[in-house]
């Protein structure tokens, strides 16, 4: 069988039309411009096949034969080296492609769902506390400017709640400097949020919604749960990892666009943060149980919050990111073992 191609001597870019043939004894002969070059097969480096790209026969003295007749080359080569081109064989089998696709999809899914949260947790637990304090101060400053104003709750009530809070935090592992702050905020409504350093902010609107101090206790315990599990930092690290991953995937191929890529981030974010809320709920439940406080308080408080926010259609941080709010309330109700609860839902 003859293979057509071009021969280059390696001294200049001049190409000569040439024919290459495999001898029965494994010798390779190239006939180029009236001259014949022969070499034993094992002294010729033949490039492996990739897709349908040209093949090169590199001869010891520097000459090279280039051809696009892949199938003929493979057919000739097969009698001498039946195992050559293993990778190309893998790349051409439908079953291998399918298995590869599954492996890659499984790995990608595992990395996003289990890998990145684990790395985020690992990093968040090792960041120095100073970082948390710094970030929290910055955030609080920004929130004060944009959403919050000084509290109008009476000094007396504040001190009362502060005392409960101190009691609550003195029992938890204290590598954190827990602090309770009161702020008025029409924009955020009845709301509470935790900063990673351990500062917990409660809005006047939330305090007004509660009837007894035990109700607010559940909310505070929930927020302390967020702090202890370092949820906000884990979320921040996780988000930036996913963002980076997406940039890496899309940027590599199209050198553009970060904007559209934020969509999947939001979806993953929603799911991930729901886990955090459940974790904080569990922390609150465990705390209330240990302190012999009726879990019904937490249950009622959540119902009240949900009702209070139904009107403006916005959910507070405490409840947001929970498409299945009802499920959470149900799971708390199950823990209370109470069939009926009288929650005194205020109707405006």
């Amino acid at each position, binding site marked *: 069988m003859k293979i057509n191609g071009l021969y280059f001597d390696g001294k200049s*870019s001049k190409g000569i039309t040439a024919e290459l043939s495999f001898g029965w004894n494994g010798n390779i002969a190239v006939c180029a411009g009236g001259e014949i070059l022969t070499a034993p097969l094992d002294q010729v480096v033949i490039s492996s096949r990739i*897709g349908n*790209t040209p093949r090169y026969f590199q001869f010891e003295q520097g000459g090279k034969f280039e051809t696009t007749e892949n199938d003929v080359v493979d057919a000739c080569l097969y009698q001498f080296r039946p195992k050559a081109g293993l990778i190309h064989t893998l790349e051409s089998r439908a079953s291998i*492609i399918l298995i590869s696709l599954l492996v890659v999809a499984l790995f990608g899914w595992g990395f996003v769902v289990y890998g990145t949260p684990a790395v985020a947790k690992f990093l968040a637990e090792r960041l120095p506390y100073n970082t948390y304090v710094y970030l929290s101060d910055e955030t609080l400053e920004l929130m004060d400017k944009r959403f919050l104003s000084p509290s109008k709750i009476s000094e007396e009530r504040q001190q009362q709640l502060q005392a409960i809070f101190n009691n609550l935090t003195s029992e938890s592992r204290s590598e954190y400097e827990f602090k309770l702050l009161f702020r008025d905020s029409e924009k955020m409504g009845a709301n509470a949020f935790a900063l990673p350093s351990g500062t917990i902010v409660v809005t006047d609107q939330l305090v007004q919604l509660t009837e007894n101090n035990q109700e607010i206790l559940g909310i505070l315990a929930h927020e302390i749960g967020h702090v202890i599990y370092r949820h906000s930092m884990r979320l921040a690290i996780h988000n930036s990892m996913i963002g980076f991953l997406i940039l890496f995937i899309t940027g590599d*191929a199209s050198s553009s*666009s970060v904007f559209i*890529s*934020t969509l999947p981030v939001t979806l993953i974010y929603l799911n991930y943060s729901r886990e955090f809320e459940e974790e904080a709920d569990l922390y609150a439940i465990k705390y209330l149980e240990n302190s012999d406080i009726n879990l019904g308080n937490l249950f009622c408080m959540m119902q009240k919050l949900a009702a209070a926010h139904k009107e403006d259609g*916005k959910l507070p941080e405490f409840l947001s990111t929970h498409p299945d709010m009802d499920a959470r309330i149900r799971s708390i109700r199950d823990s209370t073992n109470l069939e009926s609860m009288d929650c005194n839902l205020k109707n405006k």
Partner: protein
Amino acid sequence: MSAVQSDLKKYPFEFNGDGWEFFKIWIVNICLSIVTLGIYSAWAKVRTNRYFHNNTSVAGSSFEYLANPIAILKGRLIVFAAFVLYSIVTKVSPVLAGVLFLIYAILVPWAITKSLSFRAYNTAYRNVRFHFKQNFSSAYLIYLGLPAIFFVVVFALTGLMSIVNLLAIPVVIIFIIGFPLAIPAFQWFIKRFFVENSSYGRTAFRFKMSLDSFIGIFLKAILFTILIAIGVVIVMVVLTKVLGVDLQDMQNIEEGGASVPFNIVSALLGMAIYLFPYAYVQTKTANLLFGTTTLGEFSDFRFHCYQDVFEVMVLYITNTLAIVFTLGLFIPWAKVRMAKYKASRLCFMAEQSIDNFAAREQERVSALGEEFGDFADFDIGL
């Protein structure tokens, strides 16, 4: 009676790859890299580069990629070891870590040069290898010297500004004018460093791009950005008035304040601000760079590159959308589409025979160079 006979021959570049074909190679590459805990990635890189080189052809011959995967693997292991060493040292002593960081920073220009050299040496066309001269003094001047000068000037001017209040306005004006000039000027030096030290066999490439034409592209891009941004702001204001969207709500995206369609529209408009200028800079730079580069001292051998801003923009948008909606599976097709487009808009122009480019004597790039060749994989688009 014909006038002076023109021997000009045009050799268009071609890319013959196929999306599905590359997808198969790509997915097997990733799968084997995962299964072998990353070791196969060196072979994967070689196969990918070979696929793109071999499929690019001009004047009936294709490009070859000859790198040895083992060399690349060694390079990756060394970089990995350097990274591990750094993270251990940071735990032990911050001062030592600082020193190590400084050493790494000083090594960067050296590594860039080695990498370019490795890449050129392992690229061949018609059995003649490319070559990149290891010009370390230029590399250090450009990658360490120029940034150093830049920062010294910035610090000096800001210092001056804080001491002498009267100078505040002139200094700010210098900054406003200076930054848009300094960044493309830096890019220009990098491109010159790359082209001037490259050669095909014994024939050197020559860089004939003027600094002002290159800066001009960037200044126009800045102008376009400002104009588009003004247009986008006007559209947004009109939209908010018409739809009655409260801009305050926009700040609470988490709470789902603003309507979703409005968010999508504003995201798309935001994209328009940077996408057009970005595509503009990419295409015009490629066209100018190829258009002003010659193979050899004279213009007997030159290039003609004629990418179109809007065609490239459409490619960017469609590729990105397809990648996002296929969760990345479209990447191989996106790469092939891009390579096809770039090749289809590039021409090699020869006024003499292309048979006479002489090869260099076989000289290998040192083993150490090969090992560092893959260092961080510096990509310089040419």
